[in-house]
């Protein structure tokens, strides 16, 4: 990884004329992540334009990755148990990072990138938990918002409260201020140097959405109620759009709270009055995550990933939608599904939206889509002006045989001026290696990306591959049979492991008999005539099975330019693919 970082850094300092003609986009590996999990990394662009990332390496240590100085350890004490993560700019070329530590002393700590050994505790006995939000102040300090579980005597029915504290550029921290009850600390800039803090909390059997405003003068305003609804679920959050403060959540209606609807509200008078809205065409979509983008002049884009949860029907696969407003939330356009109906055999569990370009007038939407068996990052891009689509549903030309996935807690798209950094996770076929990747592009490169050649499955070749597998079974050529299994199975089970499960069945006939294609997935009718010759089992009894002539359904996948059989074990319900 150090080599990659050095190369990455070298590119930054070369004079423009010495830069090679860029292949579209540069891929930088920022570090190894735990194989799975949310909240394990965060990224931020500083005012000078550098892209910072913080990540938990295998959950044991917290590192900051800077554009210039490479890895900066923040918490590597093996006695510690850090969790939670937030970043904010701390000036032109520095960042604040915040995390919660449990051992040896439980507190919330702020640390600045230029002084990584100085940890500033800000929690002060509030018993902080690991949901943290940071916002920079213009003087190089930061506001920090979290929630804590210290019991509050005069409010025994509210076990959790949001707290706000401030740290200045010298590291002097104030005293935490108790803000609102709740467990989801959420804050946005108010557009005038202050902050807007939102919370969701239970009150008399319902959920109240509330806010308080922190003025630029540091004065915290009174609690104002935004809405009261039966029950809420994540996704929930807030954003600023052209002078309006937006907050959104997923409301759970119905006796069993399974009638789901994304709702929200906005205010343009400092939080005194709130206008409600709801995404009714997407009612019953069980939304996993929502990414909100605003162009600053009233254009809003919400990218959502969810699955249909209709009463009486089985749960659908995850799919992605885009909902836009051109008039700052007064009206919402009909949702656009970001994938064709033909891809519904696979999941698209995450989507991100952002307005990019120096004028922030081009909408870029990323979708994590598994329709081609490995996860791809696919994208949509509007033309300047944000109305017409210049690119629709194209795959990003990311290298290698990896699954690229989008993070849950990070916006994913970090754009400033003409520079765009796309943060994603890269997983190998065994799903044991997971790296944080920064895909760097200029706006110009983004518009000129050449997607990889579309994968048109070769039907003729399917039949010959299936028959090759059949011949391998009949001829007991186990290596040939193994080589035809999908790469995810082969990444986890080597040939000898495969061999252990083979040998008992004797095939007389094994051949292709027909297939039905859906994208890169072929449901193949596989005709076999097979028996199990008598053998003495471990119990001492003779076992065997008479010859049977059957047609069994098997699934073949078009990956890496050829057909492979998807490993599925009926009895054990095991498969190694994850689409």
């Amino acid at each position, binding site marked *: 990884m150090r080599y990659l970082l050095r190369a990455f850094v070298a590119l930054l300092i070369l004079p423009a004329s010495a830069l090679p003609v860029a292949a579209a986009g540069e891929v930088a590996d920022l570090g190894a992540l735990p194989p799975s999990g949310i909240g394990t990394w965060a990224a931020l662009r500083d005012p000078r334009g550098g892209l910072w990332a913080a990540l938990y390496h295998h959950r044991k240590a917290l590192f900051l990755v800077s554009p210039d100085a490479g890895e900066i350890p923040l918490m590597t004490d093996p006695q510690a148990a850090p969790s939670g993560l937030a970043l904010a700019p701390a000036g032109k070329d520095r960042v604040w990072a915040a995390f919660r530590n449990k051992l040896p002393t439980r507190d919330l700590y702020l640390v600045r990138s230029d002084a990584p050994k100085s940890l500033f505790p800000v929690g002060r006995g509030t018993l902080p938990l690991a949901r943290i939000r940071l916002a920079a102040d213009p003087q190089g300090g930061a506001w920090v918002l979290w929630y804590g579980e210290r019991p509050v005597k005069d409010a025994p029915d509210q076990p959790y409260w949001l707290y706000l504290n401030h740290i200045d550029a010298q590291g002097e921290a104030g005293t935490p201020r108790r803000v609102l009850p709740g467990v989801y600390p959420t804050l946005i800039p108010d557009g005038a140097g202050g902050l807007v803090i939102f919370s969701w909390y239970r009150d008399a059997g319902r959920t109240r959405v509330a806010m308080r405003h922190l003025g630029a003068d540091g004065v915290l305003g009174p609690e104002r109620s935004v809405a009261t609804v039966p029950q809420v*679920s994540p996704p929930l959050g807030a954003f600023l759009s052209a002078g309006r403060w937006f907050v959104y959540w997923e409301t759970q209606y119905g006796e069993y709270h399974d009638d789901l609807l994304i709702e929200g509200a906005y205010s343009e008078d400092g939080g005194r009055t709130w206008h409600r809205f709801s995404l009714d065409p997407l009612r019953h979509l069980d*939304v996993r995550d929502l990414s909100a983008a605003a162009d600053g002049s009233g254009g809003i884009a919400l990218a959502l990933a969810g699955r249909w949860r209709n009463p009486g029907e089985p749960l659908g696969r995850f799919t992605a939608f885009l909902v836009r407003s051109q008039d700052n939330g007064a009206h919402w356009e009909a949702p656009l599904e970001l994938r064709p109906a033909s891809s519904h055999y696979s999941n698209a569990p995450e989507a991100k939206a952002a307005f990019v370009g120096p004028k922030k007038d081009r909408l870029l939407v990323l979708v994590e889509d598994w329709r081609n068996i490995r996860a791809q990052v696919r994208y949509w891009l509007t033309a300047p002006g944000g109305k017409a689509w210049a690119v629709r549903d194209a795959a990003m030309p990311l290298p290698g045989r990896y699954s690229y996935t989008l993070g849950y807690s990070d916006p994913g798209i970090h754009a400033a001026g003409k520079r765009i950094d796309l943060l994603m996770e890269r997983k190998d076929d065994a799903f044991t290696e997971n790296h944080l990747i920064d895909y760097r592009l200029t706006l110009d490169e983004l518009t000129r990306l050449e997607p990889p050649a579309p994968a048109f499955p070769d039907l003729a070749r399917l039949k010959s591959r299936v028959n090759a597998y059949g011949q391998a079974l009949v001829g007991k050529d186990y290596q040939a049979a193994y080589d035809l299994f999908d790469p995810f199975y082969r990444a986890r089970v080597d040939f000898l492991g495969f061999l252990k499960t083979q040998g008992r069945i004797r095939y007389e006939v094994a051949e292709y008999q027909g297939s039905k294609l859906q994208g890169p997935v072929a449901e193949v009718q596989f005709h076999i005539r097979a028996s199990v010759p008598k053998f003495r089992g471990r119990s001492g009894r003779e076992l065997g099975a008479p010859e049977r002539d059957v047609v069994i359904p098997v699934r073949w996948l078009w990956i890496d330019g050829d057909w492979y059989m998807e490993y599925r074990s009926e009895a054990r319900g095991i498969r190694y693919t994850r689409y």
Partner: protein
Amino acid sequence: MKLSKVALGVSLGLGAMGAQAADVLFFPYVVSSSTVTTIVDVIDNGGAAIQRYNSAGVAGTGAGFNRLHWRLNYKDGANATSNSARCSEVDYYLPSSPQDLQSVDLSAHFGSTTKGVLFNDPSINNNWNGTIGSLTYALASNVTAPMRGVLFVHNEDIATATNASLSGDAMIFEFANGAAWGYRAIMHENNTNAANASDFDLDGSATTNGSQVAFMPSAEVTTRLFVTPLDDVNAGNTGDLNNTGAGTTPVTMLAASGASISGWDRFTAAVSLQTGAGVAYDRDENLVSGSVGVQVTCVGAADVHADMMTSGASTQLADGGYGQLNIAQPSAASGIATTPNAVVTYLSFSAAGATTFNGENVDGVFNNGFRIP
């Protein structure tokens, strides 16, 4: 609703009024499919003085009164995985004897030539071509696979002293890959010689509301709760299986119209995770909201991640967590009998497609099940 009961000369005896107390064994979850079966052990510890049944279902002691009543309430075929379908019923009077042990594969995957009875059982009642004719101990062998249900085995014990005479256990056996889990049967003994109403009052075995349930990472482990609603004595919903009238009349649970008169085909409860103000805590003590409730009739299942929370909550709980089980009485509706009581059985097993545990390779599959007290 199918009725598969072979009545051997059912006769309505207008005999003397007798007490109808009984010892009842209750197996709250049994299942059979092409890869899974349920092996039950039934121990009849009662002596000759215990009232059992004759082949016609009349209770008594002495010669000919050597049968226990086995009854399976089940959902089969397309209904097997429906939480809202009512159960069908099949029941037989099957021979027993003092100190007898019957180990039975309910679907007769094993023991298909011995009416589901296993392990070279030569005891007097297993007279294959004799007394039981076309009946079978494998009550689930005559239904459409797959099947999910509840099993009752009971006698007509009238003793007033505590004198439990039946006990048993069940093993849910995934014979295709060797995974198995099980539980002790719930035993209700009515020793008060009271009226029928309390014979099948099993709500004392209900899972305690508020019991805490831990669950593992969703990508590796599926955590499934099996829910068996129970009677609700407080509401007068006694679930009596014995009979409609007085005396030692044959036990039947179906009225002339075919509807179950005892309610065990339609007891309905709702489960959810209600933990503090949310659905569950993650492993870092963060509370997550997004609880979704599941209504179950007769017997059913709810997956913690897929069914009992929103996908937004499930994503935040991807590494697992714990929640508090809430069992509640649903709103009344026609065709069901609502109750606030249920037995909840916890099962965790390797998730479809999972090949790791804690991110580390694991060979083979596993499952782990237990009744939540």
